[in-house]
């Protein structure tokens, strides 16, 4: 019987189930954050940020070189990936209503679903094999390849969010297309694009798989692009799968630092976009 009572009961049950989904989703998050913070804080010290990793059995040491390496690799990735990613996005938004544009958009979409480990292999073939060594550059290339399709898609969407009328308004004022694109359309979408870049960078900084056999790892400081370079994520992985309990602790502390790094990038992006909305 489909009485009103029954219908209302169904309503409440479904609402309850959906609320339950929220609770379930929050359990791992809380657990994870709690552990990272509690176990990570335990090992945190100033030297952890600055020192080189200590060998097994020694106390102290840090992941200074890994932090620097992550920033270094990501910096290289940005230098390569941002211009191409944003540029391709502008192309898709401004000239992408053709067959070719459709194809490129489709490919960008598919590419953003390609597993990062696969991209690692590509960077390996592209940089490591010719250079005959693992290098920061290889890691940067891998991350850049990952960034380009996502950036292209989000840049396109952000530009498309700019009302078509705005473009027409500018054209109707007798402004040439290129100026309209740069000074009206891109200008309007700029805040959003900055946010997109920050979020993409945050994601790249958290990548591990493509770095495993591109930038590899390094126990020392390195500022050369053609040398293997440490990174926080790889370092965490190495610590985590090691059999030593104290390295496990360092894994947690490194994870905390990684989260802070990624989190602050994402937060900056959010703040930027919020200011834009206002």
């Amino acid at each position: 019987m489909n009485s009103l009572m029954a219908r209302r009961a169904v309503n409440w049950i479904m609402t309850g189930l959906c609320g339950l989904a929220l609770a379930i989703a929050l359990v791992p998050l809380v657990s994870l954050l709690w552990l990272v913070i509690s176990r990570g804080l335990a090992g945190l010290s100033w030297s952890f940020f600055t020192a080189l990793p200590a060998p097994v059995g020694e106390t102290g040491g840090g992941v200074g070189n890994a932090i620097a390496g992550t920033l270094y690799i990501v910096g290289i990735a940005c230098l390569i990936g941002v211009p191409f990613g944003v540029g391709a996005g502008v192309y898709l938004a401004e000239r992408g209503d053709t067959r070719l544009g459709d194809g490129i958009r489709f490919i960008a979409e598919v590419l953003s679903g390609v597993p990062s480990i696969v991209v690692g292999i590509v960077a390996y073939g592209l940089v490591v094999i010719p250079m005959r060594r693992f290098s920061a550059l290889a890691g940067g290339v891998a991350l850049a390849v990952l960034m380009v399709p996502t950036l292209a898609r989000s840049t396109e969407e952000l530009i498309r969010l700019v009302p078509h009328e705005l473009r027409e308004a500018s054209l109707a004022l007798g402004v040439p297309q290129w100026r309209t694109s740069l000074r009206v359309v891109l200008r309007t979408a700029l805040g959003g694009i900055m946010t997109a870049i920050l979020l993409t960078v945050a994601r790249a900084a958290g990548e591990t798989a493509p770095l495993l056999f591109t930038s590899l790892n390094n126990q020392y400081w390195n500022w050369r692009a053609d040398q293997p370079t440490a990174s926080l994520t790889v370092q965490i992985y190495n610590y985590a799968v090691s059999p030593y309990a104290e390295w496990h602790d360092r894994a947690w502390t490194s994870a905390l630092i990684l989260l802070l790094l990624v989190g602050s990038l994402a937060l900056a992006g959010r703040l930027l976009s919020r200011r834009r909305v206002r």
Partner: protein
Amino acid sequence: MRPKVEVRSLNAWFKANHALRNVSLTVPANTVLAIIGPSGCGKTTFVRCLNRMHELVPGACQSGNVLVDGQDLHARRVDPVNLRRRVGMVFQRANPFPTMTIFDNVVAGLKLNGVRGDYPALVEKSLRQAALWDEVKDRLRQSAVSLSGGQQQRLCIARALAVDPEVLLMDEPASALDPIATARIEELIRGLRESLTIVIVTHNMQQAARVSDSTAFFYMGELIEHGPTEQIFTNPRESRTEDYVTGKFG
């Protein structure tokens, strides 16, 4: 008197869709031409042909001539970018540049083209022409999106006026506005006629009746009748016009 705008057997297509069929009409200088007709009859397409915005639509093409001051818009020498400065346009939805201040919006057409000039004086003049000066003179440096819908629309008119066009095209400029804001815009249009030639598209027959000197009635891409506004509304020649203005359509 030579007409300000002359359209000779204009045809326009969107891909295979024949949106305008053989339209010919003339607009004398300093008059207001209103375009009326049911939805989809080609009103927007028509005005967009007058400043070559039509050709920006992918797959769009056209034939026939549009002459402004006797000069064919599609002549080799005519640069559409330049042309659009002479033939301004105001759109259905107010579209001020959201990242710019009120002031910058008004001078946008000049700044974007790198034209120098006495910007403050020009801003005041344009805003006065658009009957907005008194409402915004104390907050020219505020963002344009802080204005109400009707004010934004007048800002867009000021922006179009700042580049000193000879012809102003308006595509349903008041359809998103409330009656009061609409009345303001209508008054403005009549005022602007002193210095410009205006073509306005409207789906509101009464509005056409109020603001225009002559009215053109479009139907299914054809120009059915074009004549003095009063005649179109009190005594049209064509029975289809009569049917439309008296509400006997469909």
